[in-house]
Structure formats: C-alpha cells, structure tokens
C-alpha cells in the first residue's frame, strides 16, 4: 500500500502533479470520513462565494421531516469563466450529493459528487480535451 502511494507521488512529480503544490485546505478538518452521506434534495439557493461555493438544499429525511443542508462546492470563479452564472442553478432543482458530514454535526457536507437524479454531473465543463495538448512555446 505504501509503496503504491510513493510510486504514485514519483509519477506525479515527474509528469506533473495533479494535486497542487500548495495544497487545498484540509477538508479532513471540516468533514468526518466516518460519516458518509448521500443526499437527494431540492436546491433552495446557492452562495457564489470563495473560497468555496455552498449549495443549500432541502432534504426530506426518512422520518418525513425536512432538513436544510448546505453542501460545499468549488470556487465560483471557475464556473463563471466557463459561462455558468448565478442563474444557472435554479431553486427547485433536484440534485444528488455524495460526501461526508461536518464534524460539528451540523447539516453540512462536502459535495464530492454532485449530480442530477439521472446521474449527470452538475456544472460540467472542464478543460476541453480537444484543446490539449500543445507544447507551450
């Protein structure tokens, strides 16, 4: 197991690290790896803020009660550059979230996977594979 990770890191260092040089902040400090959640709910609003956007959604629990969850996304600046705007996620939209709950026990989670009920990813529009990979001059 350890060897595998070391090889992965060496590979990354030669050919370009996928993980950034100066790391993301420590999500493990916010969220609990032992509290996985899968949420399906209705979007009420989205905070287009940095360092991370937050999607608010109403989730009906098994007991029939509605809980107001908030789910962490990425930086909105990236979405804006891809052409998404604050109008792109209408309240009332149903989304599905895979993540982990906040350590402080609140109705907060990170959104490792955020999709529509049909499984399609939200805010798709990563780097265009057809634009790569020319050598930079």
């Amino acid at each position, binding site marked *: 197991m350890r060897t595998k990770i070391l090889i992965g890191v060496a590979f990354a260092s030669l050919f370009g690290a996928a993980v950034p040089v100066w790391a993301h902040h420590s999500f493990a400090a916010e969220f609990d790896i032992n509290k996985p959640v899968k949420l399906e709910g209705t979007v009420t609003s989205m905070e287009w803020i940095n360092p991370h956007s937050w999607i608010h959604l109403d989730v009906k629990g098994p007991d029939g009660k509605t809980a107001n969850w908030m789910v962490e996304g990425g930086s909105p600046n990236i979405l804006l550059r891809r052409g998404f705007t604050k109008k792109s996620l209408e309240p009332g939209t149903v989304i599905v979230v895979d993540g982990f709950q906040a350590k402080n026990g609140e109705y907060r989670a990170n959104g490792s*996977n955020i999709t529509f009920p049909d499984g399609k990813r939200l805010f798709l529009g990563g780097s265009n594979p057809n634009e790569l990979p020319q050598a930079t001059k």
Partner: protein
Amino acid sequence: MTPSKYFLGASIAIAMLVPVFLPAQTKSWTQPKTPWGDPDIQGVWPGTAMVGTPLERDKSLGTRAFLTEDEFAKRAERAKTQAAIDNEETVSDLTRCDPGRGGLGNTPTTCKNGISIGPPLYWDDRGKPSKQASLVMDPPDGRIPPLTPEAQKMAAERIAARRARPCAATAGGCHDTWEDESLWDRCITRGTVGSIVPNTYNQGNQILQTPGYVVLRNEMIHESRIIPVAAPNNAGRPHVPPAIRTWLGDSRGHWEGNTLVVETTNFLDKTVIGQTPASEDLKLVEKFARVSADTMNYSVTIEDPKTWTKPWTISFPLKSEPDYVLYEYACHEGNYYMYNALSGARAEEKKAARNGR
C-alpha cells in the same frame, strides 16, 4: 543585403548555443510602448498554462530543465486523460479517489469507498502540459537548496512542539485556534510568490501601467501590488523604512531594457514560501520580460540567507489570455472552513470527553 543575411545566420547560431531557459524573443515582434514611452507589458497573463508543472524537479532528471518528447508525450497524455475524466457526464468509479486519474488519493483521511472528502474534483483549472520539468529553474537541478542549519533547527523545534500537543495525534490534527491554520486557510494571503505561481485554480494575473507605476493584480487573494517604477537614469524612491513590514513586502521597480526588474523587501517574519517559513530578511527579485505578443517570461529569485543556503529561482512563461476575467476572490468573507474546522474540533473534544478519554 548581405550584412543582414550574416546577421540572421549569426543570431540563429548564437541562439542554438545559448541554453535557453525561456522562450526567446521572436524576430518579427517589436516591444510596444505605452504612450509615455515605457515598455508596455499590460494585459491579462494568467498562469493557466503552467498548472500541473511541479515546483521541484524529479531527481532522476538531474540538470535537464525540459522533458524529452517522450516524457512530454506522457505528460500530455495524462492531461488528455484528465480532461476526458473531467468531462465525463456521469461519474465512473475509476475517477473517484484514484491519484493517477485526478483523485486526491485513497488515504484514510481523504477518501473512503471511492468518495473523496473535498469538492467535485473537476472543479479545478487543470492547465495545459508544458515541457518544463519544474518551476524551480535555479539551482540547475531544479530543486530548492537546503535550509541553513539555523532554519533546520527551527523546523525541528516546530515539529517537536507540534508533536508534543495531544491534539496532534488525532486524525484531524490540531485546531485549537485560528493560529493552527495556514495563512491560506485563514485567508490572509498566499504571499508574494504564492500569488503568482500557478496553483489549482484562479491563476489570474493582470498588469496595468500608468506613468511611474506598474500594478500587478493577482486573483488570489484579490491582491493589487503597486510597484513604483524608477524613471530612466534615476535611482527611484527608496524602500520604506525597516520598521514598516508587510505580508507582501515593499516593491520597487526599474527597467533594464525592456525587462521590468522588481526588488521586494520589508517582509514580516511570518511569511511562508511553499511550506517553509521565511525570515524578515527575505528579498525577492522578479523579472518580467515580454518576448512576444502573447508571452511574458517571469522569474523570481528568492534570497533569504537566514533560511536557505543559497538563492533559488522560479521561472516560467506566462501566456496572454485577453478573454480571461479575474473575478473577486473574497476569501475571508466566505471562510466557512474556519468555522467548520474550529467547531468540528470542539465537537470532537466533547465526544472524546464523553467517552471518558
């Protein structure tokens, strides 16, 4: 005319002899000037093209600064695979957590059952692969020089002090106060070097000029570094007195030909470069050299004799992207992380106390 033919031949020969770190000036392009006669380096120069190039060079490459065609092809292939994964409409199991495919890696704290503990992984700027083997280009092996004995001792003391705290042994680490968080997580600054060196997202850099000044805007964290530039044959204004110390330092610029040279001093003793705290003797010398309409060579030489045994230099080309928009990055205002991390640690402590630990 014969003389120009010889000149052309000679300049090509010279160009081939000189080891070129950075793109050379193309023959057909002339450096534009601002209306008041300074070299015009204005524009939007995000670091997107260099995202993915590691800071330090893999040891196996030695003093080779650029990848071979084969190595580059592998890097390019990897980027292409990553882009394809990013664009997958639905999430395949292979993309989750696998570090070889963009995931954070399946470690006990970052990934479980294929789900990672961060935001969606495609919510990033992946950049374009470059042939540069590392961002560090001097020393010639592309690796940061060793720390001074003094700095090593301080690092060891820091590690020991951290390990001595009971919270250090917990899975989440220590989050007693905001001072346990990085400058980045506190949304204070990424630092002068960190604000321009490419990272995972929001690499926006913009340069504006007005008589006597060049201003470098960085998207992260909404910095605007105002650099007074000395008039030709003029010493320019001195740095602020030593009592004035700042997070981004005090910058002074002058032109050497068409290259803007910026010296920055007067740092607080709390700045960090990479993972290493720098001393207040830190001095940076940056060079901005536009070599074509769309390429500007950037380098920063980091000098701190209290911290590193010798100066070292990061350099890479910045590419113009006129359509790239720098958006506001109001980090502190939206810093739920701080609240989540601190209150999370308090909740864990309460839980541990309840369980009689």
